[in-house]
């Protein structure tokens, strides 16, 4: 089983790499992936503005480059050139560390992203558990960002943001537990190999509990990224800008980049867990390079479809009040997630882990055989 992208390349070219070349190849792969993700993050801002314009019946950016597609580059240049203001009452060390923590948490979660069976940077044995741990670094970063600014809006936004992130980790953890049970392992490749490429084999249609679980995971993970309608910690009309009020220029760009990449990671994990991941229909191309590219295309198209849904949800639903946020999490999502977990355990026990499709097929075949003779 392929474990890292370097071992995949070794397998392709039938060579054994020494440590130096391994490190160099890893650096190259990481550099490529981070660049691709940064471009996806930047295009995400552009896509958000265009799609929100579409929903609100206006044009959106269309001046910089054809159809305004270079807008995010212009924004990036603007942010670098802005003056770096550190407020006098701010805590300088933590002011610098907070965006670094957010960005590290999000970038470290890219290491297990299942983009294709060979090109995954590293397929850890504890993949999905590691992902959970690393995304909680973002919560600490949000809190420290709010604290370091030492202003009332920022502190309140930071505390609310951190408590929102940790609250919504509970239903997300419970739903991931359920998917791990269906798959039988923690590594993301195991989770994907338990599904087929055609929709009837996806885990979302495996049993009714995992169907509900998809929505629980989606809502919970969306709330974890502080994204509307759960964006009270950065609410523009209430807390000025929440925990990143006092950040300007490049420091704010790190927070924003971390948020957009995190949304993409959430969509990617949702496709891996529920929508069949990178599996190509009829296994076209096999495991060779062509198959890998097809898997990449399938994976990214599914993730982008979910990303579109995320942006759609943001510009459709109104923002939730903070006590509504907490009530939804603790009194609705957590009991439903617990019920899902118990239900899925019973389903796997009673039906030996078969999905609805397999049970119906078994039933139909048994009936046909019985009726034919």
């Amino acid at each position, binding site marked *: 089983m392929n*474990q*890292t*992208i*370097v071992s995949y390349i070794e397998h392709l070219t039938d060579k054994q790499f020494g440590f130096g070349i*391994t*490190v160099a190849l890893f650096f190259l*792969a*990481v550099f490529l992936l*981070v660049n691709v993700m940064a471009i996806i993050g930047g295009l995400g801002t552009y896509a958000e503005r265009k799609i929100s314009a579409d929903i609100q019946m206006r044009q959106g950016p269309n001046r910089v480059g054809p159809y305004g597609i270079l807008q995010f580059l212009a924004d990036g240049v603007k942010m*670098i*050139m802005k*003056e*770096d203001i550190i*407020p*006098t*009452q701010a805590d300088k060390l933590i002011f*610098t560390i907070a*965006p*670094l923590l957010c*960005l*590290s948490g999000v*970038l470290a979660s*890219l290491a297990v992203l299942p983009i294709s069976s060979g090109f995954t940077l*590293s397929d*850890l044995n504890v993949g999905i*558990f590691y992902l959970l741990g690393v995304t909680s670094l973002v919560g600490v970063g949000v809190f420290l960002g709010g604290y370091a600014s*030492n*202003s*009332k*809006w920022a502190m309140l936004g930071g505390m609310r943001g*951190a*408590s929102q992130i*940790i609250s919504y*980790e*509970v239903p997300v*953890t*419970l739903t991931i*537990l359920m998917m*791990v*049970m269906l798959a*039988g*392992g*923690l590594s993301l490749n195991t989770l994907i190999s338990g599904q087929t490429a055609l929709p009837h084999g996806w885990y979302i249609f495996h049993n009714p509990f995992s169907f509900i679980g998809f929505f629980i995971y989606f809502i919970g993970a969306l709330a974890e990224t502080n994204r509307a309608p759960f964006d009270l910690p950065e609410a523009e009309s209430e807390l*000025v800008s929440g925990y990143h009020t*006092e950040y300007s*220029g*490049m420091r704010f*760009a*790190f927070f924003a980049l971390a948020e957009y990449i995190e949304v993409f990671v959430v969509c990617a994990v949702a496709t891996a867990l529920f929508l069949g991941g990178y599996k190509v229909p009829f296994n076209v191309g096999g495991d060779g390079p062509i198959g890998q590219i097809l898997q990449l295309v399938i994976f990214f198209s599914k993730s982008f479809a979910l990303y579109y849904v995320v942006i759609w949800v943001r510009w459709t639903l109104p923002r939730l009040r903070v*006590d509504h*946020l*907490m*009530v939804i999490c*603790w009194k609705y999502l*957590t009991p439903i997630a*617990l019920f899902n*977990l118990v239900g899925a*355990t019973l389903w*796997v026990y009673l039906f030996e*882990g078969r999905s609805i499709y397999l049970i119906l097929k078994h039933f139909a075949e048994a009936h046909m055989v019985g009726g034919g003779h």
Partner: protein
Amino acid sequence: MEPSQTANVYLPTFILILMATLMVFGALLVGKFLRPSNPNKLKQMAYECGEDPVGTAWANFNVRFYVIALVFIVFDVEGALMFPVVAVFRKFMEVGSGGAVLMSLLIFIGVLVQGVIYCWKKGDLDWVKSYRSPKELKK
């Protein structure tokens, strides 16, 4: 016994964190040469919608943040304990002792659900505490 994965599998994580650090400090360094630097007192004050900031920032902290964090820790440890158990559930089912694992898992979840119900009934999960009379709370 051989470990099931060589240590190289953690190399990307480490390189990614390194790259995050390089990005942050590199961009700030590059910006130092590119951007203007005219600090004045007004720019560096905290933003409070145009007024001068009044008082410290340690406003109105409420203990409900702490209670939420406590409840979260309990659920987090519960999740971490359940991960190995659900990962091997199917293997146990193939061998035939699925019922025993099912029972132990249900007992584990059941005990914790009782904790959730307790917190719910006593109002610890409410964000805005409704002021109940002592008679109601003593029930």
